[in-house]
Structure formats: C-alpha cells, structure tokens
C-alpha cells in the first residue's frame, strides 16, 4: 500500500513538473496566436483586393492562404459529425473537397466585402479547455455596434490552424454541422444528398463569386 502511495505521489509530482514548461510556453503562444490572426486577416483582405487581378486569381490566392491556415480535415470531420464514419473514403474525400470550395467561396467574398467599410482589430487571446487558443477580435463599422469575432485555434509546436470562427456568439462550425445534418435528414439519411447539394451550391457560387 505504502509503495503504491509513493508511486502515485511521484507520478503526480512528475505530472506537475512536466506541466510547468507548458504553462510558461503558453504566454508566448498567446502573443504568437494574436499575431497569426492579425496577419491572417490582413492577408485575407489583401488577397481579395489586389488591383490588376481577375476575381478567379484573387480567389486562388485566398485559397492558398486558406489551405495554409485552416485545419480542414478537423473541421470537415466535425461538420459531417456522426455521418463521417458511415461515409465511404471516397465520399469523405469528395466532401472535404466540396467543403473547402464552399468555405473559400463563402469567406473570400465576405473578406472582400469587409475590406471596403470595416476596420479589423485583434483584442485578446486565451487558452481554451481543449488545449487550443481563442483569439478575440473586433470588427469596427461606422456608426454601428462593433461585431465580435472569436477565432478558435489549434496549436501544434508553435504553428497555428484555425478550427472555428465565432461571430457574435454564433459558431460557424456548429452552424455548418447542424445545417449539413438537416440536409442529410431531408434526403432520407443519405450523405449523397448532401454532396449533391454542395456540388450545386459550389457551382452556383462559382458563377456568381461575390455578393452584390
């Protein structure tokens, strides 16, 4: 018994020691995360407003930025939820491709639109319960209440990947997941129904890339 207690205590002590450097590192990570989001937002806006480029070239630049800063496999799995496991590998691959197209076409237009009349401000950063980081930012609009945007990040050895955007308390990722589940339900529980709806929507967004 005594031996077991010593063993447990030393395991605890070891845990405390190994946990310590992580908390120290976190402060650097938080600053890094703030810089990451500040750079990302300004690059996203620049990519969509560079003069002398066609819309398709701008969108291509935005896509490169998107692929480098968003953890697509993670959010794709989350968005498909329980249907991810019943999907065939082929369906999973097609879904991730279409989901990427959806996100790129949706958010490139939103950043382009934002460039004209808002100011972007990084406010704060904090570790979250999932060992990631949440960066708080604010979108300032003339004569209107500021919009709060939180960026949920996953960290991996000093590099960051966005996994969610929470606009005025509304998680975009949860919204996608609930909408996709509903589309699948409306199609008799078939993932093919969602893929079909995504294909049509992506084609439609490519036709008419930016909001009026």
């Amino acid at each position, binding site marked *: 018994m005594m031996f077991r207690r010593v063993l447990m205590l030393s395991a605890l002590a070891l845990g405390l020691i190994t946990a310590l450097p992580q908390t120290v590192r976190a402060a650097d990570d938080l600053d890094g995360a703030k810089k990451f989001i500040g750079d990302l937002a300004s690059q996203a806006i620049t990519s969509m407003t560079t003069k002398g480029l066609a819309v398709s070239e701008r969108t291509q630049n935005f896509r490169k930025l998107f692929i480098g800063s968003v*953890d697509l*496999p*993670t959010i794709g*799995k*989350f968005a498909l*939820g*329980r249907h*991810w496991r019943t999907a065939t590998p082929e369906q999973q691959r097609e879904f991730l491709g279409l989901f990427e197209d*959806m996100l790129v*076409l*949706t958010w490139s*237009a*939103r950043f382009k639109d934002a460039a004209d009349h808002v100011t972007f401000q990084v406010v*704060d950063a*904090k570790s*979250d*319960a*999932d*060992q*990631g980081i*949440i960066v*708080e930012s604010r979108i300032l609009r003339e*004569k209107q*209440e500021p919009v*709060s945007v*939180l960026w*949920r990040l*996953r960290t991996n050895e000093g590099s960051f990947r966005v*996994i*969610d955007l*929470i606009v*005025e*308390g*509304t*998680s975009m*990722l*949860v*919204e996608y*997941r*609930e*909408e*996709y*589940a*509903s*589309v699948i339900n*409306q199609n008799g529980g078939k993932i093919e129904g*969602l893929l079909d*709806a*995504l294909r049509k*929507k992506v084609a439609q*967004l490519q036709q*008419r890339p930016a*909001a*009026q």
Partner: protein
Amino acid sequence: MAKSFPSRSVEAFATCALALGLLAGCASPPSATDPEAVTEYQQTNDPLEPTNRAIFDFNQKLDKLAFKPVAEAYHDYVPDFARDRVHDLVDNWRAPLRLANDVAQGDADRAVETFIRFTFNTGFGIGGLFDVASAAGVPNHQTDTGATFAVWGAGEGPYLVLPVLGPSNPRDLTGIAIDYAFDPLDYSIGELEGFRWATETRGALSGLDRREKAIDALNEIDRTALDLYSSIRSLYRQHREAEIHHRPSLDKLPSPGFSSAPAAGPEISQETH
C-alpha cells in the same frame, strides 16, 4: 383605454395558436436503436419541423413580396441621417422595457447603463432622436422578457417559427406577448387619448428599421446556405443563447466538443457541447 392592451396580446396569442393548430404536424423522431440520431434529434430541438417549415416558407414569401422591397426602398430613398434618427428613436423607446428587465434579471451594471442611456438620450438626445450616450461611451445592449425568463431558469422549449415574427420558442413567445402588452412607454403613451397612432407607428418603424439593418446579412446567408431553414434555425438559436448569457466573451464560451487529448490526433468527439 388601458384595457385594450391585454386583449391585444390575447389576440396575438390566439392567432398564433390557431395557425399552429391548423398546420400542426410533427417530425417523426428517429428510432431508439440509433442513439446518435436520437441525440441529434434532441439537440436540434425541433419536433414541429414540418409545421415550422411551412410557416417559414410562408414568411419567406411574405418577406419577398412585402417586407424586403419596402426595407430596400427605405434604404435606397431615405437618407442615412433620417434612418439613423429613426433607429435611435425606436431603440430609445424600448429602453424603459429594457431597464425593467435588467432589474428583473438582477443585473445592476446593465440597469445603471440603461438608466443613464435613457435619461441622456431622452434629454440631450432630444426625445431619443440622437443616441448621445453611445457617443459618450455608455454601450447599448438588447434584452427582453424572454431573456429574463431564461435568467430565471425557464427552458426555451421546442423551436417555433411564428407567422410574420419568425424564429422563436414558447418561452420567448410568452416574453414577446408580455413585452407587447406592457412596454412601459407604449403603455403610458397609449393611455393618452388620441395617441394610439404613436405606439403603432413605433411598432411599424421598429420592424422596418430591423429589416433594413438585416438586408446585407440575410442576402449573404441566402447566397451561401444549402438549406436556409436549418441555417437560420442554427444561427437564431446560437445567437439567442449568446445574447441571453451576455456572450460573446472569451470567458463564457462553450467548447464545441473537440477532443482535448493531443496524443489522440485530430479526433473529434460526437457531442456538440
């Protein structure tokens, strides 16, 4: 004339109940053998989905035919300055109701803010035409009786789409009826002989202001949604939850349920929260 107020709310209630009763249809819950599907069904919280979808379609048609064109014309033909005055006026009009709810929720800070805003804007802001308080750094917030019920611990109940009014639930519907009947300013001004028009105009302007403010956002959601109904349902429920609990703030954010174990790799848990 005071008597007419409760009867107006009863009327609103009866209309809604009637509309719901006429169209009543329930979504068939998933079989109990699929626990994940059951969890999803419960989280979606929309047992009246077929009815809700029918009312949603009706609202969409009504919006396309009437509300949206009127809001767009208001945006295009009425100058910014005039629209800002309308916005500030109808917002300030709601302040006494907001104050009552801040107090009922036991939120002293917000109650003080609302009180200062109302006195400043009504006085220096010429009857509320100018929101001088925001410029002076006293922030605005939204709250209502439905939110007070939530703070007191009432559950939202199933998701409801109300005719004309849109996304709601039984708790907030009750709140809307009470706010409608007992808005302090509507109530006292409506008491004055020959001033009923003022409260009715206020209601119409308030709706117009809200629809005009939402033009871009709703167009954008419509542009990108695969299924507008479920998209709006998710956005509404999340937004309402955040509004009631004074989110978004870093401290109060719930986790969407990513696995926390780094060793497990990018695994994702199945729960939403």
